[in-house]
């Protein structure tokens, strides 16, 4: 079995342009198992010597060495599999063996201090060059939100019209989504970035993507602090509902840990993944209702694109964003789908108000026209802002927790298994 394995390896050996022929030859001739061959290849030896150093005196020694080697080979030949048996006898274990899931998890647990230490250290190191230093951790999300507000709140203001309390709505979405986005992008490079570390020290490799998730978590918590200040200034009431943001963000962190491990392995195997990822993430951003209301979109288009709007609602990013928005923003709680008992008339009254002012009837779905002949409600009528609470599409707000937890658990489990399977291969690069 050993020799067949090494035979099958033969052709794969060499793109490095060295003829493997003499080796295989000697092996077949002597009928030696693979184990004896490598120690002192009788044919390979003189060749190397000649190539290496042309002095005349040397080849003698080389020959003598070769002769002795053959004796040694016979010896080793008897002992095929002896090394493995010896290892088994003394309880030695393969050094590059994937640990079982249980051992791996307990190893990870023991390395938790390292994971956190590594995360903090990187976070500190990231901003040491900047004059404003750590302040950038707060400034960066603020600027980010500012840019989005400028574009979608002020310049393309039609987006913001339908959403009550648009600034808070937008900033929450941006902060929550950028946690996922940054995690995904940074973990896709973590193995390549840390190759020297991987090749120097042994530790469960999942520590690395998890440390990166922790870095982004710290970053996100800071931006959440900014957010809280922002919405308080905006006049948002401080209620017990806010506590719900904690489990929501905890679930999101688990979800991100899962996709982080997925991205880490994928990025390690496929270098082009890291190049592609920003585009994927931007697409995901626009599909997740960060800058517009998915609710509004769902009601406007569910007649024609039922399956698409369902997918849109099941999108994990959209779910986590909605959970955090519902926790922090009173306007969101009041307007979330399904927070009031179903009432078709009120729901359609709301939907009608969302109709773009210059939309032609053909663009507007027939169902709404049937229910809603009257002219649209004025923009500041309570129903036109909060009537969505009476609508019950595929996913209503009480389902969100269930789906959020489902996504978190599924991502974490699958991501972990996916990463763990290649544990020993990350050092190869």
């Amino acid at each position, binding site marked *: 079995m050993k020799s067949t394995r090494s035979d099958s390896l033969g052709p794969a050996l060499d*793109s490095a342009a060295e003829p493997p022929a003499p080796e295989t030859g000697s092996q077949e001739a002597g009928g030696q198992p693979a184990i004896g061959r*490598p120690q002192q290849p009788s044919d390979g030896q003189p060749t190397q010597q000649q190539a290496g150093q042309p002095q005349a005196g040397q080849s003698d020694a080389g020959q003598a060495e070769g002769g002795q080697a053959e004796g040694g080979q016979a*010896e080793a030949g008897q002992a095929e599999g*002896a090394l493995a048996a*010896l290892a088994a006898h003394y309880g030695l274990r393969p050094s*590059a063996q994937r640990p079982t899931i249980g051992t791996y998890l307990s190893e990870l647990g023991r390395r938790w201090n390292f994971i956190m230490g590594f995360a903090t250290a990187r976070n500190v190191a990231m901003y040491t060059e900047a004059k404003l230093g750590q302040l950038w951790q707060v400034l960066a999300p603020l600027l980010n939100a500012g840019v989005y507000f400028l574009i979608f709140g002020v310049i393309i203001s039609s987006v913001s019209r339908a959403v009550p309390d648009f600034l808070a709505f937008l900033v929450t979405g941006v902060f929550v989504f950028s946690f996922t986005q940054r995690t995904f992008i940074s973990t896709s490079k973590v193995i390549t970035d840390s190759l020297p570390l991987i090749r120097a020290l042994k530790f469960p490799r999942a520590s690395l993507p998890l440390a990166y998730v922790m870095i982004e978590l710290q970053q996100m918590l800071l931006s959440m602090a900014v957010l809280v200040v922002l919405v308080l200034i905006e006049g948002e009431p401080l209620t017990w509902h806010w506590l719900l943001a904690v489990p929501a963000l905890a679930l999101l962190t688990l979800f991100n840990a899962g996709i982080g491990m997925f991205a880490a392995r994928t990025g390690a195997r496929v270098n082009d993944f890291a190049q592609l990822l920003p585009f994927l993430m931007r697409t995901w951003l626009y599909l997740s209702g960060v800058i517009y209301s998915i609710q509004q979109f769902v009601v406007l288009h569910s007649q024609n694109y039922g399956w698409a709007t369902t997918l849109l609602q099941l999108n994990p990013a959209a779910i986590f964003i909605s959970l955090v928005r519902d926790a922090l923003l009173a306007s969101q709680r009041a307007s979330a789908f399904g927070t009031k008992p179903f009432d078709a008339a009120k729901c359609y009254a709301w939907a009608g108000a969302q109709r773009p002012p210059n939309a032609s009837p053909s663009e507007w779905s027939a169902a709404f026209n049937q229910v809603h002949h009257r002219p649209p409600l004025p923009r500041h009528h309570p129903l036109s802002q909060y009537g969505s609470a009476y609508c019950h599409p595929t996913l209503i707000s009480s389902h969100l927790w269930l789906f959020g937890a489902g996504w978190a658990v599924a991502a974490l489990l699958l991501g972990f298994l996916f990463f763990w399977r290649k544990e020993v291969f990350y050092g190869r690069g």
Partner: protein
Amino acid sequence: MARTADGADSATLPAEVAEGVTEPTVIVDDLHVVYRVYGKGGDRGTASTALFRMLRRKTRPAIREVHAIRGMSFVAYRGDAIGIIGRNGSGKSTLLRAIAGLLPPEHGTVYTICDASLLGVNAALMEDLSGERNVVLGCLAMGMTKTEIKDKYAEIVDFSGVGEFINLAMKTYSSGMGSRLRFAIAAAKDYEILLIDEALATGDAEFRVKSHARIDELRNRAGTVFLVAHDLEEVEDTCNRVIWLDRGKIVEQGEDVIGIIDRYIDASGGEKVARDPVTRKRISAPELD
């Protein structure tokens, strides 16, 4: 003559083992290691070549395999100090990494009695951070617990001789200071199987003496030591066995340290070492120790 010693320690003989005199700690069984390198060879890596490649439906030819270790077997025992010598690119560092389980074997297996560790934490440290933070980070990376770190911290800082600079970012250190601190961190842990990759003797003369002493100490406490060094005298002084590698294969191995080193020097075209005919010790050592 090298063979007598070698025959005994190649130790594929069960009889030898059955006596139970020595206990194997590392067994390398027909090891092959292959690196895959991207973006080398023929392809200039421009957009147009990539496009042509795609048009011709070729999978990326730029992946080149480097067969760094091509079949090695040996056994190391408790108490062994094994020097690994060979030219650049002969696979010395790769062999150490494979023993430590950091690189997956393409074929064959490395068995170890417990985790083998490379001496060195350079890769875990961050230049932007203070020495203090780096001490903690490095120790965590080596798998030490918080209490262990607390116990060792003063000793590490003291040994490194960095002094009050410990509060400054490591990038402000002189290269000597940096390497002293790195060494001090790495040497803070005890190892059962210790792999040293030319990390020795850094810094000024005084620190070199200190670090040599520390390595000797580690070596004495460790069960088995592998030492990769270009300084052959170092190998000669401290190792009881030598493995000579060339292009990923073992050229010669055995307990005749001096003989193998001399043949290696001959083979690489170096200057012959003058030896006392009786003791076979070097006659004129170039350095004081």
